[in-house]
């Protein structure tokens, strides 16, 4: 079954999602990877406002390829989320509820997910051409000097995602392989 999720999200909607559920995400999504996260931390350290709202927002760990003339975006699949583990708990504690990327998260991130009723959704790693097709508009909103790492505001429609870590700490990176191994025992 596929669950429709619209951003900005309310935390109550996230409570129903379980690891392994398929989600179709629509609405605004902010892109941020390593360098953008580092700058966000620097702003927070100085007590300054971030360039986009954290409350209800979806963060997508992606650095897309340049768009062809007349196109919205190029390839846009997820990057490895683990590199953002050092930064994510702080953002979750400030109310940022949905992360999209690929690969497992640290214990500290899982604890922050549970503490805040957040979720971590997985996009299909290496399927950049298909993921890009879900993006309806894209514009750089800050830190253009970072190139592919600049923060973009994307409008996505029915982006296919899988709940990787749910708000109770259920983790498909653990339960998925365990269930497969059980089936071949």
């Amino acid at each position: 079954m596929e669950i429709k999720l619209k951003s900005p999200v309310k935390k109550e909607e996230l409570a129903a999602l379980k690891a392994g559920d398929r989600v179709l995400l629509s609405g605004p999504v902010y892109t941020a990877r390593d360098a953008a996260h580092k700058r966000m931390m620097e702003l927070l350290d100085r007590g300054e406002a971030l360039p986009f709202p954290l409350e209800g927002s979806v963060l997508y760990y992606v650095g897309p390829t340049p768009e062809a003339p007349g196109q919205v975006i190029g390839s846009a699949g997820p990057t490895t989320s683990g590199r953002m583990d050092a930064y994510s708990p702080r953002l979750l504690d400030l109310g940022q509820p949905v992360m999209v990327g690929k690969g497992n998260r640290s214990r500290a991130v899982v604890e922050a997910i549970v503490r805040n009723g957040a979720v971590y959704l997985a996009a299909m790693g290496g399927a950049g051409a298909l993921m890009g097709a879900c993006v309806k508009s894209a514009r750089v909103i800050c830190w253009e000097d970072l190139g592919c790492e600049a923060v973009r505001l994307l409008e996505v429609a029915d982006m296919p995602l899988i709940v990787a870590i749910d708000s109770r700490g259920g983790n498909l990176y653990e339960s998925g392989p365990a269930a497969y191994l059980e089936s071949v025992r």
Partner: protein
Amino acid sequence: MIRTLQAGEISAAVAELCVRANRELPEDIVRAMEQAAREEPWPTAKGILDTLCGNIGAAKERCLPICQDTGLACVFAELGQDVHIEGDFNAAVNEGVRRGYEEGLLRKSVVADPLRRVNTGDNTPAALTVELVPGDRLRLTVVPKGFGSENMSALKMLKPADGAEGVKRFVLDTVRSAGANPCPPVVVGVGIGGTFDKAALLAKHALLRPLDRPNPDPYYAALERELLEAINALGTGPQGFGGRTTALGLAIETMPTHVAGLPVAVNISCHVTRRASLVL
């Protein structure tokens, strides 16, 4: 007889290879993905493999990069010793990368300095490896290497007493702890022997070998089969969500080493294992 190649010809060839490699996977990788999708017994995993095969087709059809991480351009040059290059060879390769990544709308993913991290803006410089060979030709191979998988690679200086069992343990530990990060199903390049640096280069070279071509030495061909089977019993599966297909292939390259050493390097590549070659 000395044959002359113009630097401009080399730039044009590298540019074309950068674009082609990023849009179209080698036939052996496509065949391995399709076969894995047909034979995968776990339904979730099969669904993921079908989607990934769909992405390969969509990229080719719409002239898009298969993956948004269009990589650091690893360029391998087998340079005939009877070739004379008119112009600067290194500059010609980098000019090709610059042009290919710009004209092919590929992502610029290179920072000029590993700690101060400012993007070079044109994906240069390439990681260039030159090998001098007999003849008057130049064979160029471009391998755009994504870093989701590169980051999960590892090297270890084992002791001779660790032997084949130690090598197997290290390869399996490396792939197991990589988990979902390198975008499984992965391709695994293993380098055994040489020195610290040569082992790493051997592992990268192993990724250049088509998946359907085993090591010519039956001893190592058997070790390749055994390790691939062991990896596909880990249960990691496509995207790390469980399943049989954790690796599409594994290749081992070796060279002589010191009496006191047993260097082993494991270079991991994702399901978008790209390479494109041509001969000038």
